[in-house]
């Protein structure tokens, strides 16, 4: 081969895409032709420069895009509830979870019942009792109306001098004829 290599042959030679016979002829020619070796070197350098430039232009994916991608990945995965539900459906979970759950329901039901409730609850005193008891005993002589408890005690003026007890009320209370418990 005495003719110079064409540019297409040089490129194909560099990329190893020539047929073996053509590749051998191009190799023999380059060993004796300084002009074609320069062309090969130029082409080789150009290819290297382009590869470096392409590598330099690679950029990080914007963070928002990455976040959106990860969000889609997470959405595609089952959540904790779904995973727990899936775990409950497994044969192992039924005895491991079912027995304690039944025990909790049993204890809770007992505490909510009158038996459990009465045993564990501290007594309380109705706040209204304090107001009524105070109004009944805190008498002042200067009043428009006699003392009166119970019904909206605080709204009514209270207080009066000593008075006679009502015999009917005494009799009823003494006989236990009233329905009230207090």
């Amino acid at each position, binding site marked *: 081969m005495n003719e110079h290599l064409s540019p297409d042959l040089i490129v194909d030679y560099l990329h190893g895409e020539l047929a073996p016979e053509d590749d051998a002829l191009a190799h023999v020619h380059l060993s004796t032709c300084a002009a074609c070796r320069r062309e090969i070197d130029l082409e080789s350098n150009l290819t290297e420069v382009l590869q470096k430039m392409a590598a330099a232009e690679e950029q990080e994916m914007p963070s928002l895009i990455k976040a959106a991608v990860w969000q889609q990945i997470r959405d595609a995965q089952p959540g904790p509830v779904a995973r727990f539900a899936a775990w409950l459906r497994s044969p192992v979970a039924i005895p491991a979870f079912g027995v304690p759950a039944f025990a909790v329901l049993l204890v809770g039901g007992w505490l909510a019942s009158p038996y459990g409730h009465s045993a564990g609850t501290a007594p*309380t005193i109705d706040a209204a009792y304090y107001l009524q*008891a105070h109004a009944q*005993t805190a008498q002042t002589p200067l009043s428009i109306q006699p003392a009166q408890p119970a019904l909206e005690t605080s709204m009514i003026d209270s207080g009066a001098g000593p008075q006679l007890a009502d015999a009917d009320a005494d009799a009823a209370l003494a006989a236990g004829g009233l329905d009230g418990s207090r």
Partner: protein
Amino acid sequence: MVRVKPVAGAFCALLVLASTSAGPIAAAVTPPPASPAASVSASASASALPTEPADPTVLLRSSVAAPKTVSYVGQFESVRFASSRASATIVKVEHRAPTLTRRWYVAPEALYGDYVITRGSSTYQFDTKGSKLTVTRNAALDDPLLSGGNFNRILQNYRAIYDADAIVADRPTASVSLINKYTGERAVRVWIDRQTHLVLKKEEYHANGAVAAQTRFEDLRYTTSIPDDIFSIDAPAGFSRVAGPAAAAPSSDIEKVIHDAGFTPYTPKVLPQGFNVVSGDVAMVNGVRTLHLLYSDGLRSISLFENATGAAADFGSLHPTTVSFEGHDGQYVEDGPTTLLTWKEHDIYFALVGDLLRPELIEIAKSVVP
């Protein structure tokens, strides 16, 4: 269940008012004997009015006794002021001396038609909406020492002065104010009927001068012609009859009361000037032994309740506000000028009640367990 209809109650009240208004029936009004109202007239003229005694305390003493000798029908209005709101009631009243009284609620609507009959120290509360009759005995009124002693305590701590006269419920009145001897503040002002010496209007004031409560007659007729049925305590058909909360009989023997409490109580170390312990009692409240100590200066009172059995206050539908003092949280509610403050300290639950401003009450609470 049969319920008493408010309309029927109003009709009865109107009948009473009509029967006692000016006219032939009014002319037949006979005031009780030996009464300051022995010559009560429907429209007293100024020239016929008795002059008030030079010493206002004499008039005050007479006003205290007036309800025992003067009978009347009328309507009065009460307004009680909390720190940021007020509650009011309008009540028709029939009173037959010495001890029969019926109050019939006109307002607010929630109480409309309900009525309360007082016979001496017993009270019969007719809840027409709930068809319930509640009977309550107030043992405090049976103790003449505890009740009668109040007036002397008033004079110890307050100075009575005459204020400007006024017309209340179309009646000429003499006005007397009670001035706190220690603070110089006016605590109470009353307007007293110059003929009958009945208190027709009353204003109570906080320590800062704000009005705490006002009660006054809108309408008033003196009469003894009040039918007995008005004061009937028979439960209407369908009513359940229950006993009201039993207030323990108060005792002035404080040492015995404290002994009966069964635990060592705490008492306030700081009280407004003029206040002293007046009485005490121990009551079983919802199965809880509760000590109650009452402090008073004659006009104003403070109650301290204590229990050592871990029974906290149940505020129910009340909406308490939390307040912090001396490193622990308390809760308080205001009921008109009355404040209830509760807290726990040294395994004892305390409840403090009084017609004092909240800061005053908190200062007292701080001194209970210093």
